[in-house]
């Protein structure tokens, strides 16, 4: 059995150098608590679509510190995450993050909050350009793997926005 691997850094197989402007599309969240996992659900939708070679899709899950290398090794990032901002569930919004404080506070189900991670990245060097696409959710639902109907209905819009951003 042969599994295709995509190790980072020097371990990459001898292939042509990646395009200089690789864009990282990172979906984050916890799949085990319902709508909170919308970022990972979005990743799964995007994964089934066709993308230009400079687009790298990653399931960030509840990666915490494990995501720091990805954050520090891309100049351009599109991040997809859930937010509990009081807007109707399924509302898709987008903003350009400049400092750690721009990020929504952790929802409580990610392990290390994004804000903490961005802070860490800022300590190590200049922050990448980060566009954040958020999907509003109403609540965390323990023991639910499926998205609620309004949040699931937002996925095509997320995909459309990612496509616009990657150009």
């Amino acid at each position: 059995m042969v599994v295709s691997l995509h190790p980072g850094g020097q371990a990459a197989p001898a292939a042509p150098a990646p395009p200089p402007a690789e864009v990282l599309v990172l979906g984050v969240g916890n799949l085990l608590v319902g709508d909170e996992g919308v970022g990972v659900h979005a990743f799964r939708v995007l994964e089934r679509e066709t993308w230009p070679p400079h687009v790298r899709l990653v399931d960030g899950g509840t990666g915490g510190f494990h995501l720091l290398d990805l954050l520090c090794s891309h100049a351009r990032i599109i991040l997809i995450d859930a937010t509990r901002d009081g807007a109707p569930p399924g509302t898709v919004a987008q903003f350009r993050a400049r400092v750690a404080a721009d990020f929504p506070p952790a929802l409580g189900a990610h392990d290390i909050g994004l804000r903490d991670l961005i802070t860490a990245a800022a300590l190590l060097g200049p922050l990448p350009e980060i566009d954040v696409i958020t999907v509003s959710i109403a609540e965390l639902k323990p023991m639910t793997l499926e998205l609620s109907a309004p949040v699931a209905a937002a996925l095509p819009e997320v995909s459309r926005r990612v496509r616009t951003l990657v150009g």
Partner: protein
Amino acid sequence: MSTRIVVDPITRIEGHLRIEAEVKDGRITDAWSAGTMVRGIETILKGRDPRDAWAFTERVCGVCTTVHALASVRSVEDALGVAVPPNAELIRNLMFCAQYLQDHVVHFYHLHALDWVDVVSSLKADPAEASRIAQSISNWPKSSPQYFHDLQKRLTAFVESGQLGIFANAYWGHPAYKLPPEVNLIGVAHYLEALEWQKEIVKVHTIFGGKNPHPNYLVGGVPCALNIDEANAINAERLAYVGRLFEEAARFVEQVYLPDLLAIAPFYLDWAEIGGGVSNYLCYGDLPTNGFADVARFKFPRGAVLDRDLSKVHPVDPHDPDGVRESIDHSWYSYNGGEGKALHPWDGETKFNYTGPKPPYDNLNVGGKYSWLKTPRWKGHAMEVGPLARMLVGYASGNQEIKDAVTETLAALKAPAAVLFSTLGRTAARGIETRLIARWATEFYSQLLANIRNGDSRTFTKEKWEPATWPAQARGVGASEAPRGALAHWIVIKDQKIENYQLVVPSTWNASPRDGQGQRSPYEAALIGTPVHDPTQPLEILRTVHSFDPCLACAVHLYDDRGGRLGAASTAPVL
């Protein structure tokens, strides 16, 4: 008069953890530990294919994403009687070691160090003196006066920007901070270097597990092919890269982590008498060197130490129905058999029964049910799990490598073995085992290369892969040692589907509520006697709780006897 302090940390692992403590005359007289977020993974797994369970359990926690996957595949292999090929065991061991190295270093520098290292004080340090101290304790190359000078400038800029949590939210200047400014500067320098380094070591997971976070596991082996000439397999180039990552890890541990630990500890020897807690220690053992069935040849020996008696190791078998049992007298669950029962995890039940106050609330009803964690006991004893338990069980087992490593560290600190039973001992034990792990990783790596050279490229056995080959009913235990301690998954398989699945995780052992007999669990016991200089800045509580590595950022809210809020402070953020 006594004061009730509530520490309600916003932990993002294993749900939320909350500590309530009574303080009288500057010392903690009693404490309660509560998990305030429900875990429901067991319910999600019922009825699924046992071979898929790892992929769900792995998502429970993002800090050590591999450990639940490993325990899960082992539980299925145990139930079906599958022995994985030696290379699969070695690759699992290497991923295990990479997880430990990353997790323990991150814990020391990013989750615990700022309980001991005062960032603001480091701004006053003399860079030349910091350089002199650094060079006297290690030959790590980044230690020139210029290096510390430049770093101090960077730090000053961070502090002045006011945007970075770590430099804003803490108890800087608290009298419990004892390090000279120069040692503080070294600590902060290595905080930043460790952040940079930890990004590298986890690439081992990407290489062997195909992705990170949440790498792939497989019942029956590992999901990667070994072929030194094949571009898409684990080839010579990738193996060489893994070797370099472990070499760098060993260098970081030997030249940065351990020297820092030994430089900081002598300023805090009073913490060798604080935070001991329960006197029993449990370790399932791990890192097989001759297959998982040969427990006697695990690198971390399996066993239990009771009453701190290091002359005796009690045998432990997670299959034993009278060994591990969980009760719910103080937990928000109900059992079909009623309260007061203690169930072995194979017979475990996950039926929620929340009877606590409606949030937001001031205090939990600690006389009744007060936590989402069940209370596990081993033969009725409250057991501490984690690095200290592993080192004590290894030491008591007469394991020479562990004995030597422990003895060497105690000699460097000029301290007797009794200091291990403490907050400081717990933090030291984590450093000691990290050093061992770094050495063992090199052994596993050499063994893997030797096997490949000898023509053995097997990483998977398909015997028992097909559900048609399974018995109608089977049950198994996947025991492991996660960085935070003894971890096991118990599975019951019926008609090829999961009938029951129970996890007993390290935090459940350490952070659980009291049992029906009123015995405190490790956090609760360890806090008793802990000094609290200033109830509005309970730095000391954080030191002891963080020494267990609960991996949490804390927001502390303070209440008086009548439940009114005294004040609030945000403490020891993750970053």
